[in-house]
């Protein structure tokens, strides 16, 4: 099992850092899946994480100048590592103006991802900062836990309002209630609602637009047959939604959510070369 990669471009490094920062804000531990073409940060929905799951996919060619991988075996040419993204974030933080950053899988007192950044210095010899981030190698028999999640048969898919606005609404609602209902329809309308003994607040968004899933979409019950005014809703913990919205460091080029009525809220953020999916289960 071998892994070595190198980033030379400052822009790529910054972008990669932002992705890692976003992931680190969503979870304390996750799985890093490495394949020849992609990197994935995966959080599988478990009770421990409160049922949320995350799938973040990066195309390696857009970030790394060099990328060599030798997986577990020839027919399973992948590596799964459990890592604390915060460590990775911390390591990258001070390397932002590095001439190059090398990442490789090493074995110190335990398996590590070693990040070595060559920093500009006052002399001809570069400064080198090395971080050894402890990781756990996940055995092949457990890989099935971390498969790409199936796109659920959603009832409504809608583009999100500007993140900043949505975030500020959610932040304020969090002061009043622990749960929020997100509902939307195929007419581009979305409501964020809270309802407590003392107060009910609803924020309405209009003309958001609905992504045209068409052939890409999953589903048997094609959304086209659905009454466009009919709302699909999901009642979720505000904290989880807020955590997701707060973590975003870059405005995505596309932000949308798919709702499975009363079951799941599936948020999808697309950037040029990164996609981030976040699943929040609905509560009763």
């Amino acid at each position, binding site marked *: 099992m071998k892994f070595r990669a190198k980033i030379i471009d400052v822009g790529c490094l910054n972008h990669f850092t932002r992705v890692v920062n976003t992931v680190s804000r969503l979870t304390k531990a996750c799985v890093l899946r490495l394949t020849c073409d992609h990197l994935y940060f995966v959080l599988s929905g478990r009770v421990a994480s409160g049922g949320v799951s995350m799938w973040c996919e990066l195309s390696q060619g857009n970030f790394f100048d060099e990328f060599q991988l030798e997986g577990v075996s020839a027919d399973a040419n992948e590596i799964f590592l459990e890592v604390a993204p915060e460590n990775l974030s911390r*390591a990258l933080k001070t390397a932002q103006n590095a001439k190059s950053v090398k990442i490789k899988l090493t074995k110190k007192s335990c398996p590590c991802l070693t990040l070595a950044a060559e920093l500009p210095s006052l002399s001809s*010899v570069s*400064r080198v*900062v090395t*971080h*050894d981030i*402890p990781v756990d190698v996940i055995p092949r028999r457990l890989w099935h836990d971390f498969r790409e999640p199936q796109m659920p048969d959603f009832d409504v898919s809608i583009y999100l309002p500007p993140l900043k606005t949505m975030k500020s609404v959610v932040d304020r609602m969090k002061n009043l209630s622990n749960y929020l209902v997100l509902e939307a329809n195929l007419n581009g309308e979305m409501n964020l609602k809270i309802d407590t003994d003392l107060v009910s607040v609803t924020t309405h968004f209009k003309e958001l637009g609905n992504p045209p899933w068409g052939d890409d979409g999953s589903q048997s019950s094609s959304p086209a047959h659905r009454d466009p005014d009919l709302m699909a809703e999901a009642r979720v913990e505000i904290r989880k939604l807020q955590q997701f919205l707060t973590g975003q460091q870059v405005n995505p080029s596309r932000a949308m959510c798919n709702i499975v009525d009363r079951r799941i809220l599936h948020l999808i953020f697309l950037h040029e070369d990164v996609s981030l999916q976040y699943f929040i289960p609905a509560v009763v």
Partner: protein
Amino acid sequence: MDCVATGGNVKVLAKAIHSLSRIGEELYLESVEDGLALRSVNSSRSAFACFLLSPLFFQKYQAPSDQSFRCKMPIKVTLPAKSLSCSLASLDRSVEKCRIQLDSEKNRLTITLHCKHGLLKTHNLSFQDCESLQAVFDKESCANVLQAQPRLMVDTVLHFPPSLEEVNLSVTSDRVWLRNHVEDDADSLRAMMTELCLSSEEFDHFAVGTQTSVTFCLKELRVTVYLCILTRLSPVILSVTDSVLEANFVLATLSEDSHPKKNHVNSDTKHPDTEQPPDDFMSDDMDSFLIAMETSELPGPSHVPTSPPQPTNNRKHSFIEDEALAEGPPNKKFCSLFFGSVLPTPSQLPNQTMQSQEVLASDSEDENQTETS
């Protein structure tokens, strides 16, 4: 005593007090020959800081009539008095002049802040008399001297998290390594390790006599010009020098002892064949672990016999790490920071204090701890 600081120096004074507050709970003020000394030490006596302000630092400087004036006061009290921390309201940034006066009759220190718009804030602080607080160290006898731009130090410290307790500094003839130091227990296997390697070329002055490795607490010490590592003595000294101001931060270091024997330091067991430095520093009975520094290293009026008590002699050598990288779990013991009770006048150089010098506490409370051998 009457001192007035104006302009940018007001902020410098505030920052000095602020950095002292990060070291210890009390501010020791002493009028010395060269000016005004502001000092602080932490409770475990493993870190010490001293700011020496020359008369030129002040717009007006009138030394106290009693030449050997010194006092201490809780530092938290002086901080609000200074009111100069940037994070506070904008009013605080408008301090134009700071005046420190001593009223020896009433045993009061008056700090007056002249602010913008004619606002005057007066703080009357009472203080306690105290012994002089001075760490015993000698920069001249350093085996290794590294000098660098402050920027370099700040940049290197940035790579380590603010919460990092201890850092290891190793030098060889052409390289400097800074590594985070992790306690050797179960958690350490899973901790993230960071290492920064600098070439000697980055330093303005790089003179390494012996390959050394020292471990010390790294807190808020970001302003340094000189980095001075003593191999013969335990402390790490960081100094800032300016034409009107000199600041020294002295930090105790961990001894990488190869003998894991524990030795309780108290009057009973302190006998010459003890090889080990004092035991675990983190116990409550801190004062019993304070041990005199080799008297030969005392600067100034210390014409004292160069035969220190045996234990210290051995300790002297236990800090020298020839290998830059320690193998195996080191047995750590904090080597204490040693404070000689600096005597007020050179004539009073009693032999007895030097020979039985196991003490260092300058607080009168510790007097009963002093005679431990």
